[in-house]
Protein backbone atom coordinates (compact mmCIF):
# COMPACT_ATOMS: atom_id res chain seq x y z
CA UNK A 1 0.00 0.00 0.00
CA UNK A 2 2.79 2.55 0.69
CA UNK A 3 4.11 1.75 -2.78
CA UNK A 4 0.75 2.58 -4.30
CA UNK A 5 0.54 5.84 -2.38
CA UNK A 6 4.05 6.86 -3.45
CA UNK A 7 2.99 6.31 -7.04
CA UNK A 8 0.32 8.98 -6.78
CA UNK A 9 2.10 11.41 -4.48
CA UNK A 10 2.09 14.13 -7.16
CA UNK A 11 -1.69 14.26 -7.56
CA UNK A 12 -2.08 14.02 -3.78
CA UNK A 13 0.00 17.21 -3.44
CA UNK A 14 -2.19 18.79 -6.11
CA UNK A 15 -5.34 17.80 -4.20
CA UNK A 16 -3.97 19.17 -0.93
CA UNK A 17 -2.97 22.42 -2.63
CA UNK A 18 -6.40 22.71 -4.23
CA UNK A 19 -8.16 22.16 -0.91
CA UNK A 20 -5.98 24.70 0.91
CA UNK A 21 -6.32 27.37 -1.75
CA UNK A 22 -10.07 26.96 -2.21
CA UNK A 23 -10.70 26.66 1.52
CA UNK A 24 -8.54 29.68 2.37
CA UNK A 25 -10.24 31.88 -0.21
CA UNK A 26 -13.75 30.87 0.79
CA UNK A 27 -13.11 31.14 4.53
CA UNK A 28 -11.13 34.39 4.42
CA UNK A 29 -13.71 36.09 2.22
CA UNK A 30 -16.45 34.90 4.57
CA UNK A 31 -14.91 36.06 7.83
CA UNK A 32 -12.91 39.15 6.87
CA UNK A 33 -14.81 42.39 6.26
CA UNK A 34 -14.80 43.46 2.60
CA UNK A 35 -11.60 45.14 1.56
CA UNK A 36 -9.35 43.48 4.11
CA UNK A 37 -9.18 39.91 2.83
CA UNK A 38 -7.39 40.58 -0.46
CA UNK A 39 -3.83 40.65 0.82
CA UNK A 40 -4.22 37.60 3.05
CA UNK A 41 -5.85 35.55 0.30
CA UNK A 42 -3.15 36.49 -2.18
CA UNK A 43 -0.49 35.59 0.36
CA UNK A 44 -2.14 32.29 1.29
CA UNK A 45 -2.46 31.27 -2.35
CA UNK A 46 1.11 32.35 -3.08
CA UNK A 47 2.64 30.48 -0.17
CA UNK A 48 0.56 27.36 -0.77
CA UNK A 49 1.51 27.35 -4.45
CA UNK A 50 5.23 27.77 -3.78
CA UNK A 51 5.14 25.09 -1.09
CA UNK A 52 3.30 22.69 -3.38
CA UNK A 53 5.67 23.29 -6.28
CA UNK A 54 8.66 22.80 -4.01
CA UNK A 55 7.22 19.55 -2.67
CA UNK A 56 6.59 18.35 -6.21
CA UNK A 57 10.12 19.27 -7.23
CA UNK A 58 11.52 17.26 -4.34
CA UNK A 59 9.18 14.37 -5.08
CA UNK A 60 10.20 14.49 -8.72
CA UNK A 61 13.90 14.35 -7.89
CA UNK A 62 13.48 11.31 -5.64
CA UNK A 63 11.08 8.95 -7.40
CA UNK A 64 11.66 6.38 -4.68
CA UNK A 65 11.89 3.34 -6.94
CA UNK A 66 14.29 1.96 -9.49
CA UNK A 67 11.60 -0.01 -11.33
CA UNK A 68 11.36 1.81 -14.64
CA UNK A 69 7.61 1.68 -15.06
CA UNK A 70 6.85 2.94 -11.58
CA UNK A 71 9.53 5.62 -11.84
CA UNK A 72 8.21 6.92 -15.16
CA UNK A 73 4.62 6.97 -13.96
CA UNK A 74 5.60 8.74 -10.74
CA UNK A 75 7.63 11.33 -12.61
CA UNK A 76 5.07 12.16 -15.24
CA UNK A 77 2.32 12.39 -12.66
CA UNK A 78 4.51 14.83 -10.74
CA UNK A 79 5.01 16.95 -13.84
CA UNK A 80 1.30 17.05 -14.67
CA UNK A 81 0.48 17.89 -11.06
CA UNK A 82 3.02 20.72 -11.10
CA UNK A 83 1.41 22.17 -14.23
CA UNK A 84 -2.02 21.93 -12.60
CA UNK A 85 -0.74 23.58 -9.41
CA UNK A 86 0.85 26.39 -11.42
CA UNK A 87 -2.39 26.96 -13.35
CA UNK A 88 -4.22 27.22 -10.07
CA UNK A 89 -1.64 29.62 -8.70
CA UNK A 90 -1.73 32.08 -11.59
CA UNK A 91 -5.46 32.69 -11.18
CA UNK A 92 -4.85 34.90 -8.16
CA UNK A 93 -2.58 37.13 -10.26
CA UNK A 94 -5.38 37.86 -12.72
CA UNK A 95 -8.76 37.55 -11.04
CA UNK A 96 -9.81 39.92 -8.23
CA UNK A 97 -10.22 38.34 -4.79
CA UNK A 98 -13.60 37.92 -3.04
CA UNK A 99 -15.65 39.71 -5.70
CA UNK A 100 -18.65 38.42 -7.59
CA UNK A 101 -18.14 37.55 -11.21
Amino acid at each position, binding site marked *: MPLLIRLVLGPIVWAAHFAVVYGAHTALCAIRPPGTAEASVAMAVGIATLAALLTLLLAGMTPGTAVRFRRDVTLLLTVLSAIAVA*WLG*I*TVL*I*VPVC*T*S*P
Partner: protein
Amino acid sequence: MNGVQSVLAPRGQDAERIATLFWTMLGGGTLIMLAVAVLTALALKGDSPGRGWLRSERLVVWVGIVLPVCLLTALLAWGLFALRAGAVHSDPDALRVAVVGERWWWRVIYPGAGGRSFESANELRIPVGRTVNVELRTADVIHSFWVPSLAGKVDMIPGRTNVMSLVANATGVSRGQCAEYCGGAHALMSFHVVALNATEFESWLAHESGPAIPPADAETRLGQTLFITSGCGACHTIRGTDAAGRIGPDLTHVGGRLSLAAATMSNDAAAIGRWIRDNQHIKPQNRMPPFAIFDDRQLAALSRYLAGLK
Protein backbone atom coordinates in the same frame (compact mmCIF):
# COMPACT_ATOMS: atom_id res chain seq x y z
CA MET B 1 -38.15 37.28 -33.96
CA ASN B 2 -35.04 35.27 -34.89
CA GLY B 3 -32.06 36.12 -32.76
CA VAL B 4 -34.07 37.90 -30.09
CA GLN B 5 -32.72 35.46 -27.50
CA SER B 6 -29.45 34.52 -29.19
CA VAL B 7 -25.96 34.42 -27.74
CA LEU B 8 -24.69 35.02 -31.26
CA ALA B 9 -26.61 38.26 -31.84
CA PRO B 10 -25.12 40.31 -29.01
CA ARG B 11 -26.50 43.73 -28.16
CA GLY B 12 -24.70 44.21 -24.86
CA GLN B 13 -21.13 44.68 -23.70
CA ASP B 14 -20.74 41.32 -21.93
CA ALA B 15 -22.50 39.38 -24.64
CA GLU B 16 -20.23 40.91 -27.28
CA ARG B 17 -17.09 40.02 -25.36
CA ILE B 18 -18.32 36.47 -24.87
CA ALA B 19 -19.36 36.13 -28.52
CA THR B 20 -15.82 37.07 -29.58
CA LEU B 21 -14.46 34.50 -27.12
CA PHE B 22 -16.82 31.90 -28.56
CA TRP B 23 -15.98 32.51 -32.22
CA THR B 24 -12.27 32.34 -31.46
CA MET B 25 -12.61 29.12 -29.51
CA LEU B 26 -14.80 27.68 -32.25
CA GLY B 27 -12.10 28.47 -34.82
CA GLY B 28 -9.36 26.95 -32.67
CA GLY B 29 -11.48 23.94 -31.83
CA THR B 30 -12.28 23.31 -35.49
CA LEU B 31 -8.59 23.38 -36.37
CA ILE B 32 -7.78 20.92 -33.60
CA MET B 33 -10.62 18.66 -34.70
CA LEU B 34 -9.37 18.72 -38.28
CA ALA B 35 -5.84 17.96 -37.13
CA VAL B 36 -7.04 14.95 -35.14
CA ALA B 37 -9.08 13.75 -38.12
CA VAL B 38 -6.13 14.07 -40.49
CA LEU B 39 -3.77 12.29 -38.10
CA THR B 40 -6.30 9.49 -37.62
CA ALA B 41 -6.75 9.15 -41.37
CA LEU B 42 -2.98 8.96 -41.86
CA ALA B 43 -2.72 6.38 -39.10
CA LEU B 44 -5.41 4.26 -40.75
CA LYS B 45 -4.07 4.61 -44.25
CA GLY B 46 -1.46 1.96 -43.87
CA ASP B 47 2.09 2.43 -45.12
CA SER B 48 2.48 5.95 -46.29
CA PRO B 49 5.31 8.42 -46.06
CA GLY B 50 5.33 10.30 -42.80
CA ARG B 51 3.67 7.49 -40.91
CA GLY B 52 6.88 6.77 -39.04
CA TRP B 53 6.70 9.64 -36.61
CA LEU B 54 3.02 8.89 -35.99
CA ARG B 55 3.76 5.54 -34.42
CA SER B 56 5.92 6.45 -31.45
CA GLU B 57 5.49 7.81 -27.97
CA ARG B 58 7.03 11.04 -29.20
CA LEU B 59 3.76 11.86 -30.93
CA VAL B 60 1.91 11.43 -27.65
CA VAL B 61 4.42 13.52 -25.71
CA TRP B 62 4.58 16.43 -28.15
CA VAL B 63 1.09 16.51 -29.64
CA GLY B 64 -0.73 14.94 -26.70
CA ILE B 65 0.96 16.75 -23.81
CA VAL B 66 3.22 19.68 -24.71
CA LEU B 67 0.99 21.26 -27.34
CA PRO B 68 -2.25 21.04 -25.32
CA VAL B 69 -0.51 22.43 -22.24
CA CYS B 70 0.63 25.48 -24.23
CA LEU B 71 -2.77 26.04 -25.83
CA LEU B 72 -4.64 25.53 -22.58
CA THR B 73 -2.36 27.93 -20.73
CA ALA B 74 -3.15 30.63 -23.26
CA LEU B 75 -6.87 29.86 -23.16
CA LEU B 76 -6.96 29.81 -19.38
CA ALA B 77 -5.26 33.21 -19.20
CA TRP B 78 -7.64 34.68 -21.76
CA GLY B 79 -10.64 33.25 -19.95
CA LEU B 80 -9.42 34.69 -16.66
CA PHE B 81 -8.91 38.15 -18.15
CA ALA B 82 -12.40 37.97 -19.65
CA LEU B 83 -13.71 36.93 -16.25
CA ARG B 84 -12.05 39.97 -14.68
CA ALA B 85 -13.45 42.27 -17.34
CA GLY B 86 -16.97 40.97 -16.79
CA ALA B 87 -16.94 41.46 -13.01
CA VAL B 88 -19.62 43.66 -11.46
CA HIS B 89 -19.01 47.32 -12.35
CA SER B 90 -18.81 49.68 -9.41
CA ASP B 91 -20.09 52.57 -11.49
CA PRO B 92 -21.49 55.39 -9.27
CA ASP B 93 -23.83 56.39 -12.09
CA ALA B 94 -25.26 52.88 -12.40
CA LEU B 95 -28.99 52.26 -12.34
CA ARG B 96 -29.97 49.77 -9.66
CA VAL B 97 -32.90 47.50 -10.35
CA ALA B 98 -34.04 44.46 -8.41
CA VAL B 99 -35.52 41.39 -10.04
CA VAL B 100 -37.12 38.71 -7.89
CA GLY B 101 -37.73 35.27 -9.33
CA GLU B 102 -41.14 33.86 -8.47
CA ARG B 103 -42.77 30.66 -9.63
CA TRP B 104 -43.11 31.36 -12.67
CA TRP B 105 -42.73 35.05 -13.30
CA TRP B 106 -40.41 37.96 -12.57
CA ARG B 107 -41.08 40.73 -10.10
CA VAL B 108 -39.19 43.85 -11.17
CA ILE B 109 -38.53 46.60 -8.63
CA TYR B 110 -37.37 50.02 -9.83
CA PRO B 111 -36.07 52.81 -7.64
CA GLY B 112 -38.56 55.67 -7.72
CA ALA B 113 -38.32 59.32 -6.87
CA GLY B 114 -37.50 60.06 -3.24
CA GLY B 115 -36.22 56.60 -2.45
CA ARG B 116 -39.70 55.05 -2.97
CA SER B 117 -39.50 52.03 -5.18
CA PHE B 118 -42.28 50.75 -7.41
CA GLU B 119 -42.95 47.43 -9.07
CA SER B 120 -43.52 46.03 -12.48
CA ALA B 121 -43.36 42.49 -13.81
CA ASN B 122 -41.92 40.34 -16.58
CA GLU B 123 -40.35 43.23 -18.39
CA LEU B 124 -37.23 45.20 -17.71
CA ARG B 125 -36.67 48.57 -19.35
CA ILE B 126 -33.15 49.92 -19.26
CA PRO B 127 -31.29 52.92 -20.67
CA VAL B 128 -28.78 52.28 -23.47
CA GLY B 129 -25.10 52.73 -22.69
CA ARG B 130 -25.54 53.06 -18.95
CA THR B 131 -24.50 50.38 -16.48
CA VAL B 132 -27.49 48.66 -14.92
CA ASN B 133 -26.75 46.68 -11.77
CA VAL B 134 -29.47 44.10 -11.41
CA GLU B 135 -30.00 42.71 -7.90
CA LEU B 136 -31.20 39.15 -8.23
CA ARG B 137 -33.24 37.48 -5.50
CA THR B 138 -35.79 34.71 -5.32
CA ALA B 139 -39.05 34.36 -3.46
CA ASP B 140 -39.10 30.57 -3.50
CA VAL B 141 -36.86 28.14 -5.43
CA ILE B 142 -33.72 28.71 -7.48
CA HIS B 143 -34.20 30.59 -10.74
CA SER B 144 -31.65 31.97 -13.16
CA PHE B 145 -31.81 35.37 -14.84
CA TRP B 146 -30.63 35.19 -18.42
CA VAL B 147 -30.79 37.60 -21.35
CA PRO B 148 -28.45 35.98 -23.88
CA SER B 149 -28.11 38.97 -26.16
CA LEU B 150 -27.03 41.20 -23.28
CA ALA B 151 -24.95 39.03 -20.90
CA GLY B 152 -24.46 35.64 -19.33
CA LYS B 153 -26.80 34.29 -16.70
CA VAL B 154 -26.73 34.60 -12.92
CA ASP B 155 -28.76 32.42 -10.56
CA MET B 156 -31.28 33.63 -8.01
CA ILE B 157 -30.68 31.72 -4.81
CA PRO B 158 -32.71 31.67 -1.59
CA GLY B 159 -31.07 33.69 1.16
CA ARG B 160 -28.66 35.43 -1.20
CA THR B 161 -28.62 38.49 -3.37
CA ASN B 162 -26.53 38.23 -6.51
CA VAL B 163 -25.72 41.29 -8.54
CA MET B 164 -25.01 41.40 -12.25
CA SER B 165 -24.10 44.30 -14.49
CA LEU B 166 -25.80 44.87 -17.84
CA VAL B 167 -24.80 47.40 -20.44
CA ALA B 168 -26.95 47.53 -23.57
CA ASN B 169 -25.17 48.82 -26.65
CA ALA B 170 -28.21 49.47 -28.78
CA THR B 171 -31.90 50.16 -28.38
CA GLY B 172 -34.30 47.31 -29.00
CA VAL B 173 -36.05 44.35 -27.47
CA SER B 174 -34.24 41.30 -26.14
CA ARG B 175 -35.87 38.20 -24.81
CA GLY B 176 -34.76 36.53 -21.58
CA GLN B 177 -35.74 33.27 -19.92
CA CYS B 178 -35.32 31.43 -16.67
CA ALA B 179 -32.36 29.12 -17.14
CA GLU B 180 -32.47 27.12 -13.93
CA TYR B 181 -35.13 24.46 -13.77
CA CYS B 182 -37.66 25.68 -11.21
CA GLY B 183 -40.34 23.00 -11.48
CA GLY B 184 -43.81 23.19 -13.06
CA ALA B 185 -43.99 25.92 -15.68
CA HIS B 186 -40.25 26.57 -15.87
CA ALA B 187 -40.46 26.53 -19.65
CA LEU B 188 -42.97 29.39 -19.61
CA MET B 189 -40.99 31.81 -17.47
CA SER B 190 -39.60 34.35 -19.89
CA PHE B 191 -39.44 38.12 -20.06
CA HIS B 192 -38.41 41.01 -22.25
CA VAL B 193 -35.70 43.55 -21.80
CA VAL B 194 -36.32 46.80 -23.64
CA ALA B 195 -33.34 49.08 -24.11
CA LEU B 196 -34.38 52.72 -24.59
CA ASN B 197 -32.32 55.82 -25.15
CA ALA B 198 -31.78 57.96 -22.07
CA THR B 199 -34.58 60.48 -22.59
CA GLU B 200 -37.14 57.87 -23.56
CA PHE B 201 -36.15 55.85 -20.53
CA GLU B 202 -36.55 58.77 -18.13
CA SER B 203 -39.98 59.66 -19.44
CA TRP B 204 -41.05 56.02 -19.37
CA LEU B 205 -39.76 55.72 -15.80
CA ALA B 206 -41.69 58.82 -14.75
CA HIS B 207 -44.91 57.45 -16.27
CA GLU B 208 -44.40 53.93 -14.98
CA SER B 209 -43.86 55.11 -11.41
CA GLY B 210 -47.21 56.91 -11.44
CA PRO B 211 -50.67 55.45 -10.69
CA ALA B 212 -52.85 53.65 -13.19
CA ILE B 213 -54.91 55.49 -15.77
CA PRO B 214 -58.51 55.78 -14.48
CA PRO B 215 -61.15 54.08 -16.64
CA ALA B 216 -62.53 56.38 -19.29
CA ASP B 217 -65.83 54.78 -20.37
CA ALA B 218 -68.65 52.75 -18.93
CA GLU B 219 -67.29 49.41 -20.03
CA THR B 220 -63.83 49.91 -18.52
CA ARG B 221 -65.43 51.32 -15.37
CA LEU B 222 -67.39 48.06 -15.15
CA GLY B 223 -64.10 46.27 -15.69
CA GLN B 224 -62.49 48.09 -12.81
CA THR B 225 -65.45 47.36 -10.54
CA LEU B 226 -65.31 43.70 -11.45
CA PHE B 227 -61.59 43.66 -10.75
CA ILE B 228 -62.09 45.10 -7.28
CA THR B 229 -65.23 43.16 -6.32
CA SER B 230 -64.11 39.76 -7.63
CA GLY B 231 -61.12 39.63 -5.29
CA CYS B 232 -58.43 40.18 -7.91
CA GLY B 233 -56.89 42.73 -5.56
CA ALA B 234 -56.06 39.98 -3.07
CA CYS B 235 -53.13 39.06 -5.28
CA HIS B 236 -52.60 42.00 -7.63
CA THR B 237 -51.82 45.66 -7.14
CA ILE B 238 -53.18 48.43 -9.36
CA ARG B 239 -51.76 51.61 -7.96
CA GLY B 240 -54.43 54.29 -7.62
CA THR B 241 -57.15 51.73 -6.76
CA ASP B 242 -57.89 49.64 -3.69
CA ALA B 243 -56.22 46.59 -5.24
CA ALA B 244 -52.97 46.17 -3.31
CA GLY B 245 -52.23 42.43 -3.35
CA ARG B 246 -48.58 41.42 -3.31
CA ILE B 247 -48.78 37.78 -4.39
CA GLY B 248 -49.05 38.17 -8.15
CA PRO B 249 -47.62 40.68 -10.63
CA ASP B 250 -48.28 44.39 -10.24
CA LEU B 251 -50.83 45.29 -12.93
CA THR B 252 -50.68 49.10 -12.69
CA HIS B 253 -49.38 49.41 -16.24
CA VAL B 254 -50.02 45.91 -17.50
CA GLY B 255 -51.45 47.13 -20.81
CA GLY B 256 -48.16 48.80 -21.69
CA ARG B 257 -46.12 45.61 -21.55
CA LEU B 258 -45.05 43.56 -24.54
CA SER B 259 -46.44 40.26 -23.29
CA LEU B 260 -48.59 38.46 -20.79
CA ALA B 261 -47.87 35.62 -18.35
CA ALA B 262 -44.08 35.99 -18.39
CA ALA B 263 -43.77 36.29 -22.16
CA THR B 264 -46.03 33.31 -22.73
CA MET B 265 -48.59 35.13 -24.87
CA SER B 266 -49.12 38.39 -26.72
CA ASN B 267 -50.75 41.25 -24.88
CA ASP B 268 -54.19 42.47 -25.94
CA ALA B 269 -57.68 42.44 -24.53
CA ALA B 270 -58.58 39.12 -26.15
CA ALA B 271 -55.46 37.45 -24.72
CA ILE B 272 -56.18 38.86 -21.27
CA GLY B 273 -59.69 37.42 -21.46
CA ARG B 274 -58.40 34.01 -22.42
CA TRP B 275 -55.83 34.14 -19.64
CA ILE B 276 -58.40 35.00 -16.95
CA ARG B 277 -60.71 32.18 -17.93
CA ASP B 278 -58.33 29.52 -19.09
CA ASN B 279 -54.89 30.21 -17.63
CA GLN B 280 -54.32 26.66 -16.37
CA HIS B 281 -54.36 25.39 -19.93
CA ILE B 282 -52.18 28.19 -21.23
CA LYS B 283 -49.63 27.88 -18.43
CA PRO B 284 -50.25 24.70 -16.43
CA GLN B 285 -49.66 24.78 -12.67
CA ASN B 286 -49.34 28.57 -12.59
CA ARG B 287 -50.50 29.89 -9.25
CA MET B 288 -53.47 31.95 -10.47
CA PRO B 289 -56.77 30.09 -10.28
CA PRO B 290 -58.91 30.14 -13.47
CA PHE B 291 -61.83 32.53 -13.19
CA ALA B 292 -64.85 31.03 -14.93
CA ILE B 293 -67.29 33.20 -12.96
CA PHE B 294 -67.47 35.97 -15.53
CA ASP B 295 -69.93 35.97 -18.39
CA ASP B 296 -68.75 37.07 -21.80
CA ARG B 297 -69.76 40.67 -21.34
CA GLN B 298 -68.06 40.93 -17.96
CA LEU B 299 -64.95 39.24 -19.25
CA ALA B 300 -64.76 41.67 -22.17
CA ALA B 301 -65.11 44.63 -19.81
CA LEU B 302 -62.45 43.34 -17.43
CA SER B 303 -60.07 42.54 -20.28
CA ARG B 304 -60.53 45.92 -21.92
CA TYR B 305 -59.96 47.65 -18.60
CA LEU B 306 -56.70 45.82 -18.02
CA ALA B 307 -55.53 46.17 -21.61
CA GLY B 308 -56.10 49.89 -21.28
CA LEU B 309 -53.74 50.23 -18.33
CA LYS B 310 -50.91 51.48 -20.47
